C-alpha cells in the first residue's frame, strides 16, 4: 500500500512537469495549429539558466525569474525569426521549423553550459514529508502546485479575458480575427512568450529533483506531447489531465514492471491514442456545420 502511494507520489510529481509542458504545447497549438517541438528546450533552459544565474551569485528566486523571462524572450525571438517569416507555409513545414529550432537551442546550450549535469538547491529543503508510510519531497509540492496554479491562471485567461478570447479566435479563424481588429501577430508573439515562460517554469521547479543537462529537452517534449495528445490537443484541461496521466503511467510502469520500460510507456500511449482515440480524452467535438 505504502509502496503504491510512493509510486503515485513520484508519478504525480513528474506528471506535473509533463502537464506544464503539455500546457505549453496547447497554447501555441491553439494560436497557430503548430505543434512546437522546441517546447522541451524551454524546460531545459529554465533549469539551465537558473543554475547558471545562481552559480554566478544571484539569489535563487531572482535566478528563477530571470530564467523564465529570458526563456520567454527566446520564445518571442523564435516566433519572430523562424515562424513569422514562414507564415503561410503548411503547418507541417512550421512543425519541422520548430524541430530545427529545438536542435539549434540544444546545440547552443551545449556550447554555453557544457555537457555536465547541473542542479541547484531545492526551494524548501530536502527533508522528505512522510504521508501514510510513503514520503514526498517538498520540491514535489512546488512542482505540483506550479502546474495547478498555471492551469488555473490559463483557464481564467482564456475564459474570462477578452485578450484570451482573442487568442482562441485567432486559432479558430485568423482571417476573421484580423477583420475584427485583432493583431494576430501580437497574439502569436504572446503565445510563444507564454508558452516558453511556462516551459521554463517547469524546468525551474523540476530541476532540483530531475537535474538538468543540455539534452533533457527532447524527453520532456515527447512526454508532454504524449500528455497533450492523450488529453486532446488544444484543450488546457486535457493537457493537465493528460500530463498527470503520463506521469502516473510512467511511475507505475517503472515501479511494477521495470524502469527500463518507463520511457516506452509514453510512446505506447501516443500510439494507442492515435489508433483508438485520435481526438483524445477531452478532444473538441466538431460542431462546425459548414
Amino acid at each position, binding site marked *: 500500500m505504502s509502496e503504491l502511494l510512493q509510486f503515485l507520489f513520484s508519478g504525480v510529481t513528474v506528471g506535473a512537469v509533463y502537464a506544464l509542458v503539455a500546457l505549453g504545447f496547447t497554447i501555441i497549438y491553439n494560436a497557430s495549429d503548430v505543434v512546437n517541438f522546441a517546447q522541451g528546450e524551454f524546460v531545459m533552459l529554465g533549469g539551465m539558466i537558473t543554475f547558471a544565474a545562481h552559480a554566478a551569485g544571484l539569489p535563487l528566486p531572482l535566478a528563477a525569474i530571470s530564467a523564465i523571462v529570458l526563456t520567454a524572450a527566446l520564445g518571442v525571438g523564435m516566433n519572430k525569426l523562424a515562424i513569422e517569416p514562414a507564415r503561410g507555409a503548411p503547418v507541417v513545414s512550421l512543425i519541422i521549423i520548430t524541430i530545427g529550432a529545438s536542435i539549434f537551442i540544444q546545440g547552443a546550450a551545449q556550447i554555453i553550459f557544457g555537457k555536465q549535469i547541473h542542479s541547484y538547491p531545492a526551494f524548501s529543503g530536502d527533508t522528505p514529508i512522510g504521508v501514510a508510510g510513503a514520503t514526498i519531497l517538498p520540491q514535489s509540492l512546488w512542482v505540483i502546485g506550479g502546474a495547478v496554479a498555471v492551469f488555473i491562471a490559463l483557464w481564467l485567461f482564456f475564459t474570462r479575458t477578452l485578450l484570451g*478570447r*482573442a487568442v482562441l479566435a485567432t486559432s*479558430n479563424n485568423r482571417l476573421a480575427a484580423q*477583420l*475584427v481588429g485583432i493583431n*494576430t501577430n501580437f497574439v502569436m508573439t504572446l503565445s510563444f512568450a507564454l508558452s516558453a515562460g511556462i516551459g521554463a517554469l517547469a524546468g525551474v521547479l523540476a530541476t532540483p529533483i530531475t537535474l538538468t543537462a543540455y539534452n533533457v529537452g527532447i524527453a520532456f517534449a515527447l512526454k508532454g506531447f504524449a500528455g497533450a495528445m492523450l488529453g486532446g490537443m488544444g484543450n488546457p484541461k486535457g493537457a493537465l489531465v493528460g500530463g498527470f496521466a503520463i506521469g502516473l503511467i510512467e511511475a507505475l510502469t517503472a515501479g511494477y514492471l521495470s524502469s527500463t520500460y518507463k520511457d516506452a510507456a509514453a510512446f505506447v500511449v501516443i500510439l494507442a491514442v492515435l489508433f483508438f482515440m485520435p481526438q483524445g480524452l477531452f478532444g*473538441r467535438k466538431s*460542431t462546425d456545420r459548414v
Partner: protein
Amino acid sequence: MLTVEGLRSRYGRIEVLHGIDLQVNSGEIVTVVGANGAGKTTLLRCLSGVQPVSGGTVTFRGDQITTLAAWRRPARGLTQSPEGRQIFTNLSVEENLRLGAYGFADDRVDRDMEDAFQMFPILREKRNLSAGGLSGGQQQMLAMARALMGRPSCLLLDEPSMGLAPIIVSQIFDTVRGLKDLGVTVLLVEQNAFGALKIADRGYVMETGRIIMEGAAETLIADPRIREAYLGI
C-alpha cells in the same frame, strides 16, 4: 467616405484586379455586382487590408489607408462581414459579438449587443450556444451583427445572400436597407445583382477585374445589357 483609385492586386503572379476606381459617399448604399470570379471578394479583402495591394490607393475618411495593417482598420470605422461568414465556430454567439467590438471596452458594447439582438432576435435565443451550430442564415446574421459591433461608419458586406433560402435573403436585404437609417454607409458585393441593385443607391458592374459600368441603381436595373447579363431577364 471611401475612395479607391487605380487599385491593383494579385495572387502570386496573376493579377486579378486591374485598376479599380470606385467611390462610396457618406450615407450611401453602394453595390458592386459581377459574376463568379470577377474579383469582388478580392476588392473587399484589399479594402480590409487582408490582401496585398500591388498598385493604386485606398482613401478612407480623408486618410490614405492603402497599406494600413488590417487589424487597425476596424478602429478607423471600416469593418467587414466576409464571404462565407467566417464566424468563430468554436466560440459562443455572444463571444463572437463581443469580439466584434474587440477594440472597445466601454458601456456602449452592451448597448450595441442589445441592438444586435433587437435586429436579429434569433441570436439572442442562441447567445450561449456554439456559433458553429447555427444554420447558414443565422451564421450570416451573426457575421453581419459582429461587423456592426465594430461601430463601422462604413460596412463592407460580401455576398450576404450566398446559399440562403429566398425568404432569408429578402430578410437580409431588408436589414441592409435598414442600416442606411442607422447612418451606416454600406458597400455591398453581390452575385445576386437584382436583389442588391433594388436596395442600393448606386452600383458598379465588375467583370474580370475591371469596372465596366457604373451608375444609379435604377439606371443599371433598367439597362438592357445588365438585364440580360446579370438579371437573367
